[in-house]
């Protein structure tokens, strides 16, 4: 009887699943269309086995579990179709099917064990059921296949047993095949595979470039760091994403691939700070919006401070505020920690910026301080609203060459960034000038001709202001002759290096850490030994590390200075954001803790007395942490201080708070 039932079950499941899948595809196709290139499907297997697996493998136990479960299932299902579906019975195929079922069973046991006491980041609900379903499928498939190798009678006992086995297999097929098409947890396999094939950032995959894999032990990222935001067509009838259907269809597909593993949630600085953002929930809300309904069935951690179940959406209705509150979008620091961790390679930050673009450009509802910064950028070309001609005030006594006075060209154009207006960062810039001079570098600055790179405007969604700044900076830069640009600002570094090319500006730009490391390697800097043994730690700026893959140069510099570096638990590609990126310091969404305070805790755990930084924004955020705390020094400051020939000598940070300073942990803060 089983031999009759099994083909019916399998083919019914496949058929029903296919109907569901077709309906799912229709949901994705509600997004903005782009030309279909079907041949991309061919890339999928390799991308799955190579690129995706590489991300999954950061959690070894989970990777093994997934290999066993998924591999076992795929093999068992394929064999089941052949063996039980088409009836090609035979001991060899039967044996393989049994083996695949066992492998899957072993994997499913591990999944099940993880689900007994699931970590907070995991969603529950149907995902709790999935582990049981996996067991049901593998056990069911195993038992019904035993007769094939002659271990059990072909009739398999009486009707009751057949009924039980049929139900077991039916349960398994319902979850694994029907659920895959109809939006159950197994949807991830279907959507995820297609997402790999049609990913909007194909550069992220190894098959798109011949770049050798990074030899840097800190950079586990594979493929290129495709991190530039997509340019927005300012002539489009609608700017940014208002409704789920305004996303590119590949984005919708990507959202649907989410496995709710919560790795994004676990690394999100805003979530940890109790701000109303949870990248996992955001992606699930996008799925709710795409398919229509409410978020009531969401079974994971929500947005801190916002109840689950009160929001609803549909593909054709505005996302904000009925599906997602605006403050959720403004809490994001664009640190890309979520993107970096996502095993399904979902692009959370792109989605957030797309939605911010609509709020800013179409609604004009940028949060107050962000709007002020944008107004300033429009009026003065810098976010502080300062006279742009005062960009060089800090260097009045340094006699820096202006590039306009160097028509013959220079080796290095020093890009100052808006830190030039900030007294703290001016110390970094002065240190950098000292280093460039000590290294005999031929350099000049743009001075008042330099404008804000457009980073903040772009992350706040004001693509128009960004593009205006970018075009004007590109025009300015194009007028002058220089070999390379060097900047101490990772945001300028990222925007000029990675985002200007889309607007016709291709310049070689180096972060100052890379450039200083180069100077050291070339033997152009000599430094003395620090007489005090001091432990430092290094905080990777998001826009230098995760965005651009520069993890090595800063560490080389610290080593060259003879400093003992105690790495934070979260460093390198897993560095925790300072809280200052993406305009988050301007939107300033309240939470329970401050992100820089949490980061400073990470620093304190290392026992370091100094945290080396490489970004004006990180410096500002971390220095905002109340003292006593480790001191914050830019790499340039540390290098300049150690230079044997000091050149332009000045008193800089005079007396940092010593580690000895008393902390009164029991002191009560009055409410």
């Amino acid at each position, binding site marked *: 009887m089983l031999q009759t039932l099994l083909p019916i079950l399998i083919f019914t499941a496949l058929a029903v699943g296919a109907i569901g899948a077709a309906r799912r595809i229709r949901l994705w196709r509600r997004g903005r269309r782009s030309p279909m290139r079907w041949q991309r499907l061919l890339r999928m297997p390799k991308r799955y086995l190579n690129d995706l697996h590489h991300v999954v493998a950061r959690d070894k136990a989970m990777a093994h579990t997934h290999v066993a479960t998924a591999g076992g299932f795929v093999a068992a299902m394929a064999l089941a179709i052949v063996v039980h579906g088409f009836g090609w019975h035979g001991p060899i195929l039967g044996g393989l099917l049994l083996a695949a079922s066992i492998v899957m069973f072993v994997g499913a046991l591990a999944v099940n064990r993880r689900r007994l006491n699931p970590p907070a980041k995991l969603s529950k609900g149907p995902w709790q059921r999935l582990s049981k379903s996996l067991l049901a499928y593998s056990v069911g498939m195993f038992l019904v296949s035993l007769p094939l190798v002659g271990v059990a009678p072909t009739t398999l006992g009486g009707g009751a047993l057949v009924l039980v086995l049929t139900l077991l297999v039916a349960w398994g097929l319902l979850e694994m095949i029907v659920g895959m098409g109809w939006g159950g947890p197994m949807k991830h396999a279907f959507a995820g595979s297609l997402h790999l094939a049609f990913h909007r950032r194909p550069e992220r995959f190894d098959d798109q470039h011949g770049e050798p894999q990074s030899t840097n032990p800190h950079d586990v990222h594979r493929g290129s760091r495709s991190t530039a935001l997509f340019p927005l067509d300012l002539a489009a009838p609608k700017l940014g994403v208002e409704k789920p259907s305004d996303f590119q269809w590949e984005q919708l597909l990507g959202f649907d691939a989410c496995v709710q593993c919560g790795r994004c949630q676990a690394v999100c600085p805003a979530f940890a700070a109790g701000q109303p953002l949870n990248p996992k929930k955001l992606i699930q809300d996008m799925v709710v919006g795409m398919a229509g309904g409410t978020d009531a069935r969401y079974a994971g951690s929500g947005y801190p401070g916002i109840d689950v179940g009160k929001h609803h959406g549909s593909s054709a209705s505005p996302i904000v505020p009925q599906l997602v509150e605006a403050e959720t979008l403004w809490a994001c620091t664009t640190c890309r920690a979520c993107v970096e961790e996502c095993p399904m390679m979902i692009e959370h930050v792109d989605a957030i910026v797309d939605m911010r673009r609509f709020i800013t450009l179409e609604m004009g509802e940028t949060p107050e301080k962000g709007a002020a910064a944008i107004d300033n950028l429009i009026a003065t070309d810098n976010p502080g609203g300062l006279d742009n001609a005062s960009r060089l005030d800090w260097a009045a006594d340094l006699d820096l060459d202006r590039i306009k006075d160097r028509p013959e060209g220079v080796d290095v154009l020093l890009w100052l960034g808006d830190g030039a207006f900030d*007294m703290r960062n*001016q*110390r970094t810039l002065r240190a950098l000038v000292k280093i460039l001079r000590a290294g005999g570098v031929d350099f000049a600055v743009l001075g008042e001709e330099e404008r804000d790179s457009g980073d903040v405007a772009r992350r706040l969604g004001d693509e128009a202001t960004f593009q205006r700044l970018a075009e004007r900076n590109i025009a300015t830069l194009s007028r002058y002759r220089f070999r390379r640009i060097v900047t101490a600002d990772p945001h300028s570094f990222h925007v000029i290096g990675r985002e200007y090319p889309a607007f016709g500006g291709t310049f070689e730009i180096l972060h100052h850490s890379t450039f200083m490391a180069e100077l050291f390697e070339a033997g152009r800097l000599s430094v003395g030994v620090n007489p005090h043994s001091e432990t430092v730690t290094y905080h990777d700026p998001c826009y230098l590390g995760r965005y651009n893959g520069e993890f090595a140069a800063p560490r080389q510099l610290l080593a060259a200075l003879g400093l003992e570096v105690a790495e934070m638990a979260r460093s390198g590609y897993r560095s925790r954001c300072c809280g200052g990126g993406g305009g988050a310091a301007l939107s300033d969404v309240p939470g329970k803790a401050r992100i820089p305070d949490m980061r400073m805790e990470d620093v304190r755990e290392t026992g370091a007395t100094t945290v080396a930084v490489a970004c004006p924004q990180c410096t500002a955020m971390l*220095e905002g942490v109340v003292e006593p705390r480790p001191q914050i020094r830019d790499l340039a400051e540390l290098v300049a201080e150690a230079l044997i020939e000091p050149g332009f000598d000045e008193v800089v940070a*005079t*007396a940092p708070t*010593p580690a000895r*300073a008393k902390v009164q942990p029991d002191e009560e803060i009055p409410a």
Partner: protein
Amino acid sequence: MAHEALFKPIQIGKLTIRNRVVSTAHAEVYATDGGMTTDRYVKYYEEKSKGGCGLCICGGSSPVSIDSPQQWWSSVNVSTDRIIPHFQNLADAVHKHGGKIMIQITHMGRRSRWDGHNWSTLMSPSGIREPVHRATCKTIEEEEIWRVISDFAQGARRVKEGGLDGCELSAVHQHLIDQFWSPRVNKRTDQWGGSFENRMRFGMEVLKAVRAEVGEDFCVGMRICGDEFHPDGLSQDDMKEIAAYYDATGMVDFFGVVGSGCDTHDTLANVIPNMSYPPEPFLHLAAGIKEVVSVPVIHAQNIKDPTQAERVLEGGYVDLVGMTRAHIADPHLIAKIKAGQTDQIRQCVGANYCIDRQYQGLDVLCIQNAATSREYLGLPHVIEKSTGPERKVVVVGGGPGGMEAARVAAERGHDVTLFEAEPQLGGQITLAARAPQRDQIAGITRWYEMELSRLGVDIQLETRADDSTIRDLQPDIVVLANGGHPFLEQVPEWGYSDNSDESLVVSSWDILSGKVEPAKNVLIYDTMCEFSGMSTADYCASQGATVEIVTDDTKPGVAIGGTTFPTYYRSLYQKAVVMTGDLALHKVYREGDKLVAVLENEYTGEHEERVIDQVIVENGVRPDEGLYYALKDRSRNHGQIDLEALYAIKPQPTLAESGDFALFRLGDCVAPRNTHAAIYDALRLCMHL
């Protein structure tokens, strides 16, 4: 951005100044070797430039002529080419750190002394005596006028050849140029006096000659007064007219404006306003000048903190702020503002120790910062952390000496415990700050409190350390700075007793601390003639007492410097305090509910009596030596400081020895000196710990 106005660069003539902060011209009294800017001088200005100061104008009253005496105040001698290479050193040192440096050049006319050195005959437009220096002078002749004009030009040439960035012509403080300006002292009827143009002529000829010599591009400014504050002197309106007149020539690149003239004791006190003045008391005068001139205006006088300076600049009253004493107290002022460490700025409190030394011809020193002008000796403004062993340092006494010792030891990286018997730090500063108009001196303590807290010094208040408390801490170093007590037991006839019910006299400390209320009718007997007696008198009078202050010296307050005794006198005369000199307190006895003080004339021996309610005696401090002698024998150095090492700014040899703790003592617990002495000893001793 914070302090945007403060850090806005500015053009003065062809010169770019990196910020708006100026160390204005003041006599440093460091130009040794016949007025040369030698090592000490160079390092003093180099430190300011290193600390970020935009412009230093050095050499207050640097004479261009040999008959304007240079030696009294060790001024810079611009009357000889010998100065040029020295200027080159000075310019290089300042430029190296991005600062600019100019010098003030002058002929002081009658405002000097004639009774020494070359025994110069002083000159003035009309030969009128100057009272502050008791300076008689001759009436300047036509030939001498032209000689001095040419001397100015030569002086300016030397400045330019020496590589300085400019010069400031002094037409302030009643020097020769403004002696010609002021109808108060210029009574001439020839072409150099009388009409406005005639009175302006000398200054104009100087300016023309200087310009002709140095050319258009070299920076030349003028320092002028805002109002002489004399009915027969130059008013603000006069000064506006004068400033506009010179400005119209286009030959002046900047004006420095000082409120108040200074040819009397009373007006002189205005020039360097002490702590009794409000912030920037004469800004309005400078702002008035700014209204009528087309070039930048600099103004100093009681601008001490960055926020105040920012406010002055933002208001557009003047273009640059002079923060001269502020830089004497902390030459790293600007660096600390830029580093966001404004809380760590050692702020000038207006004690005027600096300028009051200068008026006596002594080198300018800061009451609270012993490193200032001692950079050349190796005294640091930033204490380096020790690379040696971490030591347990116990400091006893939270007065200035003890606080400095604790600070420096903690900066060296040592584990420091500070004991103070009183409920707050400060020692005698706390008492001094209780007097009217003297509260700002507490700024010294405030800075130490913040620094000690930042440095994590363990401060044990209301704890009188004894042998066993100290022993319990197992110190490597013990520094005693436990001060003393009012010395009332010196003359038994005064009737002092430990029992306050029996004692016929009380101390100034009893009064200022509030322990004893001033009575209705008070006699203060002050042998010291310093701040303490005057402050006590002022305090009692302000509490409604009828006060007579008597001294055996020539006049109460006579030991107080030239910029501070006038403000005491203003206050005491206003409150009808009687100040009597030349009488010693012979004896005090009780008569009914009154006291009788028997006073003996120093010169006749005659006695006179006062019947009063209260006798307050200010007879200085007697060191408390008990703790020292309790510890001395056990200490490995027997409490001795190696003076050779101390004076040479070298580590004490005992630091390299082993044994029980090393014991040092500083400040009034050794012998009563002053705040600076205690701080200086603490710094030079502890910087090597």
